[in-house]
């Protein structure tokens, strides 16, 4: 039978390792996604991610199932191309694509001074922390 527990603090049975339940909710990742951004984009694993939109080369939008309370959350992303071993840096948002409460934007681009062009990455990882709506 489903049940609901309402408490303010969690401790282990010895009374140690106290943590407020607000930290449990606030400190949990609200979304993550691991997807293939090359060819037909495909989600490999996720939490609270409904889909990935392929906006163009190296340009993706992770669409959230349940929205965040606002766009002021924290998002981390990394990316890599396995076939060539090329290092790729992923970042969120710019002047043309802003981060929203229900969508997080990721750009994957080559690093290196001479080549920072966008690139379809084989492996893209995103994790989002913040407040749910």
């Amino acid at each position, binding site marked *: 039978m489903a049940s609901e527990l309402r*408490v303010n603090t969690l401790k282990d049975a010895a009374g140690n390792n106290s943590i407020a339940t607000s930290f449990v*909710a606030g400190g949990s*990742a609200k979304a993550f996604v691991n997807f293939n951004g090359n060819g037909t984009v495909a989600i490999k694993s996720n939490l609270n991610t409904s889909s990935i939109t392929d906006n163009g080369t190296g340009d993706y939008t992770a669409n959230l199932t349940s929205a965040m309370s606002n766009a002021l959350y924290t998002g981390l992303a990394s*990316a890599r191309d396995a076939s060539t*071993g090329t290092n790729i840096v992923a970042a969120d948002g710019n002047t043309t694509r802003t981060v929203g409460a229900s969508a997080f934007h990721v750009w994957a681009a080559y690093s290196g001074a001479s080549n920072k062009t966008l690139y379809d990455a084989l492996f893209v990882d995103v*994790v989002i922390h913040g407040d749910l709506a």
Partner: protein
Amino acid sequence: MASILKVDALQGVTAAGSILVTGEGNSTTTNLQQGLAKAWHSFNGTGTVATRGSFNVSSLTDTATGQYATVFTNSMSDGNFSHSGFSEHDGGTHALFATSNKDNNPTSTTKAGIDSFRGSDNTGIDSSQMTHIIVGDLA
């Protein structure tokens, strides 16, 4: 009224590995287990590599210059978890960070391969300040 729950383990009723937590907006719920970081790792990747702080990390492997693997104590369910982080080289040259799935440093259920490289020329570089966080499903 304030309340404190003292337990050593939490399990869901319908499914042991699934407990819903109400989010900050008091309406949406999120899965507690899936939202928890399953490992984190702060380490010095220069010289003799050394872990500074960690959770669910059994060891650190130095596979090549700027190339490491965080080895888990408890394995993930598959190699498709999400991991991110940053590195910084304190020798005046800032390094960047990338998760790795290269053939010579693959991510698997038991470890996460990571690379540190210099942003200016894409060269692997050992970093003194490495941070790494892993989210996904435990086995």
